[in-house]
């Protein structure tokens, strides 16, 4: 620390430079405060200080991120499956590595302040960040400091970030949403119903999706992608389904339907009960038909079985 407490500089062949001055207080506040410098900067000590050659500052960052692997092998392996790693290996050196998100000397537990996670992603994904910030989730996060709402990593994961444009990612969307929306402890506070997941899963789209997922590989792939949560509710721009946004959502619904059901008339969206379970006030016709059969079927079975038993009994008695 003798030297690096002063203004030292690293120079790269490209002419860029990087300060070698270490802020001791940030190092001491970091989760790595028990580590010694050479745990990460291995090969370096006060006795040994070999000269290394990097063409650019970015090259140095990429190489330094390899040091994390020695301890965080599981996370490092996960990143190798990610779209970021794929881009990096295809030659996009701007694709993020460990240090880009976690920092270097001042590493802290990133999960403590969830808004920071979104801000990390914003550095590269500014457009999507802006859309997210206006959504019901982003708005609650940034304006109300709500820690329940999802941030980027809740759907995209932190390390094994997958290309979200694939069919397999799309087919897992209901799982991602139900992480919170099927959990009463999380959404109950906001007066949201956990029935939204069940009502989707047990209806046409949900059941079809379930089988499409089971059919993976073994059978012919589905002819078309099935509607999932994001198709009606949006992705990063998810709005509230109550209040002023609700009417917009409803008005847009028929257009959403028509993306797959080209002929859908304006009545068509009503054939979906908007996540409501049929009741006397919501879809009374469906409720009534169901009720009739709920009474009729047990009566029918009981009546038939009783007759059969009486018949057998009479036959036995007559013999």
């Amino acid at each position, binding site marked *: 620390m003798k030297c690096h407490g002063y203004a030292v500089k690293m120079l790269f062949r490209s002419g860029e430079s990087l300060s070698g001055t270490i802020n001791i207080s940030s190092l001491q506040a970091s989760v790595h405060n028990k580590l010694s410098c050479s745990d990460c900067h291995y090969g370096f000590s006060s006795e040994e200080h070999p000269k290394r050659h990097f063409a650019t500052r970015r090259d140095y960052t990429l190489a330094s991120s390899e040091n994390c692997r020695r301890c965080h092998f599981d996370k490092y392996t996960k990143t190798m499956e990610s779209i970021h790693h794929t881009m990096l290996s295809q030659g996009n050196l701007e694709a993020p590595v460990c240090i880009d998100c976690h920092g270097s000397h001042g590493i802290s537990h990133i999960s403590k302040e969830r808004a920071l996670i979104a801000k990390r992603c914003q550095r590269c994904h500014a457009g999507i960040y802006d859309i997210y910030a206006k959504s019901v989730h982003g708005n609650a996060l940034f304006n109300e400091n709500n820690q329940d709402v999802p941030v980027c990593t809740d759907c995209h994961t932190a390390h094994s970030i997958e290309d979200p444009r694939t069919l397999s990612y799309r087919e897992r969307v209901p799982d991602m949403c139900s992480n919170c929306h099927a959990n009463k402890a999380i959404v109950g506070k906001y007066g949201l119903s956990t029935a939204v997941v069940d009502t989707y899963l047990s209806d046409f789209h949900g059941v079809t999706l379930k089988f499409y997922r089971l059919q993976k590989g073994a059978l012919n792939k589905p002819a078309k992608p099935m509607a999932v949560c994001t198709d009606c509710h949006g992705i990063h721009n998810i709005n509230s389904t109550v209040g002023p946004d609700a009417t917009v959502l409803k008005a847009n619904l028929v257009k959403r339907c028509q993306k797959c*059901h080209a002929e859908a008339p304006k*009545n068509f969206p*009503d*054939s979906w*009960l908007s996540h409501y379970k049929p009741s006397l006030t919501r879809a009374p*016709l469906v409720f009534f*038909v169901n009720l009739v059969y709920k009474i009729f079927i047990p009566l029918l079975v009981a009546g038939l079985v009783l007759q059969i038993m009486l018949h057998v009994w009479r036959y036995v008695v007559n013999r």
Partner: protein
Amino acid sequence: MNVGTIIQEERVRRFSPARSVEHVAHVLTFVVLVCTGLSQRFYSLDISQWIILHLGGIDNVRLIHRFAGVICSLEVITHLGVAVIGIVFRKWQPSMVITKKDFTDVVHNIRYYLGIESSPTRGGRYTYKQKFEYWGILTGVLLMILTGFILWFPSVVTKFLPGEIIPAAKVLHTNEALVVFLIIAIWHVYNAIFSPEVFPMDTSIFTGYISKARMLREHPDELADMEDKPLEDMPTSS
């Protein structure tokens, strides 16, 4: 009188070959519709998933179900057409029509089972048990044909009707299917296979013949009518 113990017994014609063919066709479409339909209703059961995955996936199962549904519709239309033509032009007896006697027969027979009446009811060509089964299934199938087409073409239907018709049709279709399945699985299978009167199986719909002993026991009124008339004029349909 046990049918199985009589080796050479007098038989009478009960069904024409056309009825036997029709019955086999119904059995086949019924089995296909039940396998592809109930597996969709009870989609979370292992057996349902096994069926759907072995039939090539959910899209295939729906395709097969709709195809079988069309066949079933054609069978029903043919059946009703033949019955109407037969009754109107060939003077067949409308023997499947429900009469007041059927209701009194139900009460009478249950009293007989309980030991209050000394003898069972005297059946005509079709007993109340058979009429219940026939009309129960026919109305069920007609409802399923109607709702089945609604579910097949939701975009067309909602041009004219409110959207709620679609989930209502789904609930009706799936519940009515269960009703028909239960009538067949409980009532028909008992009366045609497990009933001690016919066990191991009532073969009359397949062979077209029934023993005279059974006619006397189950359809005495029809037998009485028949013996006054030549066989050709027998009602064979409905």
